[in-house]
């Protein structure tokens, strides 16, 4: 099953809607709670990143009984040094974002942790694509 979501960049309060809907759908389909949670958290962190760092983007989810594929695409500023961005605690988030509860620099590490496969492609000035896979054994 394929799902598509537009993630608006100007409304921080709505970030997480896609993850919420995917979570609900997967529960309905009877996926185990831990798999649902891995998908929800990985997608939620990705969604938040698109909103706070990239002015929004798009989410494509492909739910297959044994594998959930997540594709997050944005046309934001891109990430200059992906391996640096992947480090625990590394963040460029400004203070106003920190006051919203984000900017600990743990989002990408969390995505890596909860997904079974993760790939980031990013070009400065063009945008960022994140692909994640979570398996349902």
């Amino acid at each position, binding site marked *: 099953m394929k799902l598509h979501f537009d993630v608006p960049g100007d409304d*921080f309060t709505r970030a997480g809607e896609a993850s919420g809907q995917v979570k609900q759908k997967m529960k309905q389909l009877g996926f185990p709670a831990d798999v649902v949670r891995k998908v929800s958290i990985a997608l939620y962190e990705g969604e938040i990143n698109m909103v706070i760092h990239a002015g929004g983007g798009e989410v494509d989810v492909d739910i297959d009984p044994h594998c959930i594929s997540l594709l997050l695409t944005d046309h934001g500023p891109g990430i200059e040094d992906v391996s640096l961005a992947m480090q625990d605690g590394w963040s460029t988030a400004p203070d106003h974002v920190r006051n919203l509860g984000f900017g*600990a620099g*743990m989002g990408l590490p969390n995505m890596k942790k909860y997904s079974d496969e993760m790939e980031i492609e990013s070009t400065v000035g063009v945008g960022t694509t994140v692909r994640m896979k979570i398996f349902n054994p």
Partner: protein
Amino acid sequence: MEYLDADLLYGEELLDHEVHTACGSDMMSDVLAFVKDQAVLLTGLINPQSIRTAEMMDMTCIVFVRGKEPAPAVVELAEEKGICVLRTQHPMFAACGILYSHGLRGGGHI
């Protein structure tokens, strides 16, 4: 949960729910980093993302510390997600201490 002198903002019917574990943070990704089946989130963050974080973590209850009043839309979102919302005047450290002294733990290894 009355140990916290907390006001109930939503979730009367959820109150009987027994909880054993909690975590406290104002940084959502820190909360999301460790899944240990925590049931309660204590936070000073009163925007909708605190509710969504609890949702993604399958938490059943949020406690807003330092007497902060969330916007009605935030409580509505909790209602939609079936998450109980409390507010206490205690600051974070004290609220966590009170719950800890009444037997709540960090979760995971018991």
